């Protein structure tokens, strides 16, 4: 049982998908200007990433592995993710227009989020079973949402600060992200209790 907990906590904090694995940086920089959109993006990514890990595990184990087609993983995963994102978008648009309003254009952007492709591939590389894959996917997604929301909160405040002219905008955001990554390195110490 504790093994699963370690996978989850490790995925959220120690091996944070954005700040340690450096995956999914484009939404991290692009969708973090406002706290509300960060919440929406975090929620959408969490859902899609968890679904994608499950679906890709099934495809890999029951479709690709039996026929020895492992080299088609990247291709088939991308197609699956795109389909899931599309499907999610349509379902949300129909069932909850308010949620769709909050997520807006960020939902289709998830397709191009490399974390969503990277995490299923990492699952396979690490030889996770189905439950482990799901936990790792969900943990990574939560970690992604966590840093995205933290970062958006910081950026909203930085906007009011007297930033030197040449550092305004993306430059100071990069510096902030770097400092956050340094801070997250501190979680590596959690390893000792494993």
């Amino acid at each position, binding site marked *: 049982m504790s093994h699963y907990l370690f996978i989850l906590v490790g995925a959220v904090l120690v091996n944070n998908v954005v700040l340690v694995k450096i995956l999914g940086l484009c939404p991290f920089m692009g969708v973090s200007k406002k706290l509300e959109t960060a919440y929406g993006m975090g929620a959408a990514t969490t859902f899609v990433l968890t679904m994608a890990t499950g679906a890709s595990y099934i495809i890999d184990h029951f*479709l690709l592995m039996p026929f020895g*087609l492992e080299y088609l993983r990247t291709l*088939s995963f991308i197609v699956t993710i795109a389909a899931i994102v599309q499907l999610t978008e349509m379902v949300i648009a129909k069932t909850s227009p308010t949620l769709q309003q909050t997520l807006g254009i960020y939902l289709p952007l998830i397709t191009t989020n490399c974390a969503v492709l990277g995490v299923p591939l990492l699952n396979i590389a690490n030889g996770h079973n189905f439950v482990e894959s799901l936990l790792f996917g969900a943990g990574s997604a939560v970690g992604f949402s966590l840093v995205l929301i933290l970062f958006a909160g910081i950026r909203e405040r930085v906007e009011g600060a007297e930033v030197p002219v040449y550092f305004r905008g993306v430059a100071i955001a990069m510096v902030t992200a770097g400092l956050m990554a340094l801070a997250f390195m501190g979680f590596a110490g959690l390893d000792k209790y494993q």
Partner: protein
Amino acid sequence: MDILLAIAIMALGAVVLGAALGFASIKFKVEGDPLVDKIDAILPQTQCGQCGYPGCKPYAEAIAKGEEINKCPPGGVEGVQRLADLLGREVKPLDAEEKPKQIAIIDENTCIGCTLCIQACPVDAIVGAAKQMHTIVAPLCTGCELCLPPCPVECIRMEPIAENIDNWKWKYPVVEIKAAALKEAA
């Protein structure tokens, strides 16, 4: 043989996913485009047509289809900014110069009562009747200038809205008014 199998499997996947998406797109079809309404809410509703579209809604529809967001002078730079935020596009400088908010004034001595401006006004802000003097209901005027060209005697002019106590705004506390602010807080 392997390659054929791979193609077959990928094709199968494509067919399955395509069918699922196609089914979903029919099952979860949404009428109308909520994005247009959101864009329309940002536009200033002057209905002036300066963007080249006959009103704000048509321009909102055009933006949703990919038209530039910087064609609305009454919305100003701030309008462009908000559209850019909504649509995740780059902020562009305004396509035309930004004018201060203004309203139309009819010179009532020159007006001949032709009703042409009444027909041109998109927001029913002009009152009058044939051969009667017309006047502009100032609070309703959006300053779109559409009444200027039809007037045969050129009796309509635009005037910037003067600052009064009701629409006066506190200034951003910058250096020059700091002295007054300090005295007050003393």
